[in-house]
């Protein structure tokens, strides 16, 4: 019953502005946000670009060409072994649905946010295409 009462509050998965709807199963989003598989090469560029993916600000990863990686979040090494593609997608789209108090921003959510700067309002951090590229790349990180 408690669940039913909270539907309105806890339904962030909504097509709003640039965010399309997606289906969550457990801790995973099985379907590609774009309907196609992403490009891991482009994904690597996004992940390692501190102004686009922002990943390396917090995460460490097996990228010798990226100096000064963050230490606030888990090493991305082996991410593709630890998680399935569907689980990776969930964690990038909205990791707070897996770890509620995470510091990781939801990369594909535009609601439940406060005081967003005007130029970012209604926009997710990454587009559906970029997220698929990132997922495709992280899935290749098999080395533990």
């Amino acid at each position, binding site marked *: 019953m408690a669940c039913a009462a909270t539907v*309105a509050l806890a*339904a962030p*998965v*909504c097509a709003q502005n640039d965010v399309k*709807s997606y*289906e969550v199963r457990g801790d995973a989003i099985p379907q590609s946000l774009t309907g196609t598989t992403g490009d891991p090469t482009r994904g690597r560029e996004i992940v390692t670009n501190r102004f686009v993916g922002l990943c390396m600000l917090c995460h460490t990863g097996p990228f010798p060409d990226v100096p000064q990686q963050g230490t606030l979040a888990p090493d991305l090494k082996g991410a593709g072994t630890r998680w399935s593609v569907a689980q990776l997608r969930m964690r990038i789209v909205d990791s707070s649905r897996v770890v509620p108090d995470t510091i990781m921003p939801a990369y594909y959510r535009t609601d439940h946010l406060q005081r967003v700067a005007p130029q970012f309002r209604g926009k997710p951090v990454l587009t559906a295409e970029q997220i698929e590229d990132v997922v495709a790349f992280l899935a290749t990180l098999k080395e533990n």
Partner: protein
Amino acid sequence: MPSTCKPSNLTSRRDALRLMGAATAGYALTIVRVTPLAATPADMRTAIEKITGGAKVSAGRVHLEIPPLVENGNTVPCAVTVDSPMTAADHVRAIHIVTEKNPQPNVISCRLGPRAGRATVSTRMRLSDTQTVVAIAEMSNGSFWSGSVNIIITLGACLEDLI
């Protein structure tokens, strides 16, 4: 089971969380990321040739000291010391600092002589990226010596609005 997609109806709550509220009037955010044109290692070689007039540069005698942890590329402390007795007969005439990837290779060119007593100068420079920095000394006998160091630059994590 798929999650439903309902329009979220949180406007009032979000507004309540806005804390004292209002958007600031007249606020305009301008993010300026300065990405200057970068010189190349070839430009640095050209700059060195201009300094030396094409003379041979030997590695050694020049010590370029830059702290191992450079916290910001906009202000990098550096000191150059040259092994030299700094006598009238044998001294350093000039010390130059050049870089590989800054928009322009030259950083500073200093003229000194035996009156300096020691061949040591220091300054603070800007480094646009992780790169090699080279110091060149011109000796009183016309020979050129150099020392170099590769510097890793910490980039600021956040961009700021230009004020």
